[in-house]
């Protein structure tokens, strides 16, 4: 449904996207994951026909994004990144305008507007001015206009930014509900969001694809290693030696902002699935030291990026050697 081949986009001399290729099958929900400024929005703007790529091709529903942009735009729904809608318009008037601009007939217009009002939870604000709505509601109005014409392809740029936790859950389940019927490409920089909503993930950094995998495989990759933070009242070198000796622990590093007074902070690395926390606690207590804290550390998105980017660079180096 979405085919991107060797897509590059330059703004002057600045390269925003470099040689990106991936495809999305019909009915698939795919996540574009990357830090801010990594080129997610640029890819989406090319896909929506907002501007053409510098090089390469992008096709959506069989239509070329640069050459057949009008036919393509009829078939997509797009939620831009900073959903700024007309502040002087009321929500209903705005949705009426969107439906009319998409040439929907009167019956279908009435039916679909009622449907998106229900799906996006807009019934309370339907006659309010968009300018007076909270960020969360504005986001939902943006989503409503993208869903209005039941597009074949839905392109959502950061759909859950600015929403409160309850709304995030609602929107995620709404997107999950589209699975199989609508092809969805969504971008985010929140890792759990991807695993909750997407079947497949494309990770980009500085305009290049660094990984492409299913959400499960990615999660496994992230959780391939456990890290445990240990805070102990005791002599640093001894603590380190004792922790290294605990079965299952592969490596111990001393945390950066160590020791206030007599406490030391270490991070024990262990393979995933091996319960080491109990053994660590027992070892520390057995030596008579004060055990302040034992806590698993979650691998953050930053860690994942660092790792993926390092892997990539190592691979490039290996190619060159």
């Amino acid at each position, binding site marked *: 449904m979405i085919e991107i081949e060797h897509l590059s986009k330059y703004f002057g001399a600045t390269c925003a996207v470099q040689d990106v290729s991936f495809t999305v099958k019909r009915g698939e929900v795919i996540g574009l994951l990357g830090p801010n400024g990594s080129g997610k929005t640029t890819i989406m703007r090319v896909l929506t026909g907002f501007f*053409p790529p510098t090089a390469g091709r992008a096709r959506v529903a069989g239509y070329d994004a640069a050459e057949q942009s009008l036919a393509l735009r009829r078939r997509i729904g797009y939620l831009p990144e900073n959903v700024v809608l007309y502040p002087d*318009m009321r929500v209903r008037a705005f949705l009426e305008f969107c439906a*009319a601009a998409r*040439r929907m007939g009167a019956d279908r217009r009435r039916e679909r507007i009622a449907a998106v009002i229900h799906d996006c939870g807009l019934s309370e604000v339907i006659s309010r001015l968009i300018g007076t709505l909270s960020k969360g509601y504005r986001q939902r109005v943006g989503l409503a*206009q993208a869903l209005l014409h039941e597009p074949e392809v839905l392109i959502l740029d950061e759909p859950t930014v600015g929403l409160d936790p309850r709304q995030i859950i609602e929107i995620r389940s709404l997107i999950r509900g589209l699975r199989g019927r609508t092809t969805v490409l969504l971008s985010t920089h929140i890792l759990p969001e991807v695993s909750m909503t997407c079947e497949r993930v494309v990770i980009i950094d500085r305009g290049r694809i660094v990984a492409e995998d299913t959400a499960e495989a990615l999660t496994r990759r992230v959780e391939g290693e456990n890290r445990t933070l240990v805070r102990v009242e005791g002599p640093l070198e001894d603590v380190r030696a004792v922790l290294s000796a605990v079965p299952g622990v592969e490596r111990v590093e001393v945390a950066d902002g160590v020791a206030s007074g007599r406490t030391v902070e270490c991070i024990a690395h262990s393979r995933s699935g091996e319960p080491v926390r109990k053994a660590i606690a027992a070892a520390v207590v057995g030596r008579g030291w004060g055990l302040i804290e034992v806590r698993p550390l979650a691998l953050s998105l930053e860690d994942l990026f660092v790792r993926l980017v390092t892997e990539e660079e190592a691979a490039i180096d290996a190619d060159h050697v």
Partner: protein
Amino acid sequence: MTFLAVLRKELASYFVSPLFYVVAAVFLCLSGYYFYTDLIFFVTFGFGMSILENFWQLLLVDLRLVMLLSIPLLTMRLFAEEKKLGTIELLLTYPIRDGELFLAKFTACAAVLAILLAGTLLYPIYVYSLQPFPWVPLIAGYLGLFLLGLSFIACGLFVSSLTENQVVAGMATIGILLLCWILSWNEAATSPELLHVLVRLSMFDHFQGFARGTIDAQDLAYFLFFVSFFSFLTLRVLESRKWRGRR
């Protein structure tokens, strides 16, 4: 259909914003002032002379200045505001042709201009009720005012498509239009040959014929060309996003 949807949105956004009401109020106040003073002048000094030449012509010529000051305020927001808000991204990713978008904005502004001009029809109606006069030549005068307004709108839309700052768009439009006007004023600063060319280029000089109550094909063609030229430029600006960043 799509054109109508955008047109309705544009018209609605005029009538919900205070800007339109302020511009309309200033436009009608200034026009009314000109009407009053020109009429007093005519009654005092021109009694018994042709009312067309000595009153209506003067008034129509004075109205140019009022239009020059008010129309850029109506056009400045048309593209600049969409760009500033970011809503242009939404519009350009909707199945709306650039031409439809442009035409809808142009038509909406032209409709507002028509409303403003309709407001000034009160003057001939009032004068006619006091003392009937040959009103047919006034049709040409109003046609001329409307065409002049359309050329202002075309120019203003073009400037608005270049910037995302409304004030910049408004000021630059006033500057361009004023320059077009005063271009042919100073005979001493230009050679007679050059002045001849400048007069042909100046839209304000092409308006004179209409004010006199005549419709000249040359003047009509001039305004048609002026509007098409700036519309062409605006469409190229809209299109430019498609070739920028291409290699």
